[in-house]
């Protein structure tokens, strides 16, 4: 399952949590179907510090925390 951010007003991709997607609701939808598997970020690349931040944002999605 690919995940990425999006801003509806600006009509552009963003990092996870920087756009207008409600990740709590997305998580709820995953839970409703008892989805088990990967959430796979497909974003622009970067260095280790950036990728660590992406990893932390993925964790927040999984844990139901605000990014």
């Amino acid at each position, binding site marked *: *399952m*690919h*995940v*990425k951010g*999006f801003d*509806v*007003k600006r009509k552009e991709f963003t990092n996870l949590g920087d756009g*207008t*997607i*409600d990740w*709590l*609701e*997305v*998580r*709820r*939808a*995953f*839970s*409703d*179907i*008892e*989805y*088990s*598997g*990967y*959430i*796979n*970020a*497909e*974003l*622009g*690349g*970067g*260095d*280790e510090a950036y*990728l*660590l931040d*992406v*990893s*932390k944002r*993925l*964790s927040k*999605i*999984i*844990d*139901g*925390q*605000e990014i």
Partner: protein
Amino acid sequence: MKKINRRSFLITSSSGVFAGMAFTGGISATVEASPETFKGKLKKSVFWRMIPDSLSIEERFKLAGRIGLDGVEVPTIEKSHLVGEFREAARKTGITIHSIMNMKHWKYPFSSSDPEDIRTGMKGMETSLQNARDFGADTVLLVPAVVNAQTSYKDAYVRSQKHIRELLPLAEELKLSLQLKTSGTNFCSAPLNLPDMLMSSTALILKLTSMSVILPFTVFRTTGSER
């Protein structure tokens, strides 16, 4: 087929839901005091090309481990010596290659009218499916069709169904899921179009789980066998 509920995946402002997208009657999200229990289990991964290619394959797998990932999704690996390198690096680091992103489908889509394109596209998918078998991945990501000035929606629909159907026996034999990605393709970008397309594509899809996040990000995962 599981019924798809209409939901809103957009953050609501104080003045209401953002306009411009197809969802209506959605459920507004509220900030939870404590997270709801999640029924299922989620693991973290990134697409391989997000990790700097200035690093060796093994170094990239080690980086994935340092930042806390469970797995990576890799693009189609065509060179056989690289398959071994990827497999060894994954084994050493404990990072799972869980998915193969097929690469030929943008230039050689299954919606093309050119038989040579289809042949090249099919070979690409066969390689991706073999990669999945070699790595123990359970998913191959395929863009099923591209609608553009050369290819009408109807032709894209009919052609892609035909060719995906040809792949399903191999996917079934390898016990793989095909993940169909429609973002950026102008094809089935409304999530309610996808179940009909998928259900008519083959009798081998016995269970469909569907998820729409936000247009144009509509990703469906199908299983090749009944769970």
